[in-house]
């Protein structure tokens, strides 16, 4: 696939938003790398985006939060319990067995849903923490404690700083050079942060050992212009975050996963 300037005009927004598929992303990038006008166009769009980030977010005032909480509580109180329990003689009939079997299934479904929701909520919190870690690393100018493109330098640096040994892989041949690592804290536990780059985009990879017994998970989210992809494998949680186009971050994720566990 090759693109002309008109195509760039059409797809630039989707590209900047990370909504363009990989094939078009590559075609767009190959055109832009050779076209000054389109480079300027993308730079202009990024500048607008940057400017938009300076606008403060309107958080709900506490008075409103209190009002809404009251509304929610009122509705919850007004809703009658859906399954009034009364013990009747006919429950002893064979129908009762069917009913209790059915309610057992229903109960386990509810439990499954509750567990699922809990996992989602925990993942949401971690997603926020990971984005915070990413933003902090960029804003505080504290991107790296150890600056090195050599994984044999980065990996030993973590020894004695975290109580696990992160797998550090080099993806320079895939276009994602390792630039360093640092110690970070996500959700109150220490994490090894590995820093990779793609052009001028920073990718933070947070790695920590998964707590015993936690379910393995995989998430993919898009929060305030940052993309976060995570998974667990072999007891290790991996969270990657960047403002890179989602298709490219996916590509990075696949290569990282393959290299770490290959």
């Amino acid at each position, binding site marked *: 696939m090759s693109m002309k300037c008109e195509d760039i005009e059409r797809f*630039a*927004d*989707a590209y900047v*938003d990370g*909504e363009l598929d990989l094939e078009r992303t590559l075609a767009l990038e190959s055109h832009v790398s050779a076209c000054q006008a389109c480079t300027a166009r993308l730079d*202009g*769009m990024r*500048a*607008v*985006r*940057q*400017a*938009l*980030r*300076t*606008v*403060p*977010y*309107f*958080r*709900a*005032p506490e*008075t*409103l*939060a209190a*009002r*809404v*909480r009251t*509304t*929610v*509580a009122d*509705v*919850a109180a007004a809703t009658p319990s859906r399954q009034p329990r009364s013990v009747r003689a006919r429950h002893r009939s064979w129908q009762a067995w069917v009913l209790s079997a059915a309610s057992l299934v229903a109960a386990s479904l*509810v439990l499954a849903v509750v567990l699922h*929701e809990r996992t989602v909520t925990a993942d949401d919190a971690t997603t926020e923490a990971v984005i915070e870690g990413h933003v902090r690393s960029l804003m505080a100018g504290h991107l790296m404690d150890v600056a090195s493109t050599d994984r044999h330098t980065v990996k030993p640096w973590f020894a004695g700083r975290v109580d696990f040994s992160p797998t550090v892989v080099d993806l320079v041949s895939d276009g994602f050079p390792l630039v360093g690592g640092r110690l970070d804290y996500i959700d109150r536990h220490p994490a090894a942060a590995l820093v990779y780059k793609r052009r001028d985009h920073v990718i933070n990879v947070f790695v920590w050992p998964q707590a015993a017994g936690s379910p393995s998970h995989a998430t993919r989210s*898009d*929060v*305030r*212009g*940052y993309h976060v992809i995570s998974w667990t494998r072999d007891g290790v949680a991996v969270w990657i975050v960047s403002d890179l186009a989602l298709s490219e971050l996916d590509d990075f994720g696949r290569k990282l996963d393959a290299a770490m566990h290959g």
Partner: protein
Amino acid sequence: MSAVSGETLLSHLDAAYNLARWLMGNPADAEDVVQDAYVRALAGADQFRGGDERAWLLSIVRNGCYSSHRRQSVRQAADFDETVHGEDTVRPSPEQLTITRDTSRRVRRAIERLTPDFQEVIVLREFEGLSYKKIAEVVAAPVGTVMSRLSRARAQLAAALAEEKG
């Protein structure tokens, strides 16, 4: 079984307020719309057919804003113009959109001047980070329409910011 809980809806309160605050243009109307949207959402919680709770809630907030506008025929531009006059003493470098203390105020004003259909896609995309698909759900328009609105909205913002630079 109702598929969405009050608890879940509460967790999206900031998103609901942020959208309403932009679309209504002032805190008092935004609060009323959000409060009303929660009453509606809770009443209709049983009708929620799965999917994204946040997008669902935001679509209710958004519709509330539009009906409120229709009811009161709230003046959009008048309020904002007052803040426009007598400022603009700072002129950032023309080569680039310099990020200054002033930028935030300028951008805010530029967003406020967009028409609501452009404003909402900018807010949902840039401040809520919603995907095109979810924005389409909220504003009840096809993804292609969302894409073109976003693109035109950004072009207008860029133009407005460039103009201010002088």
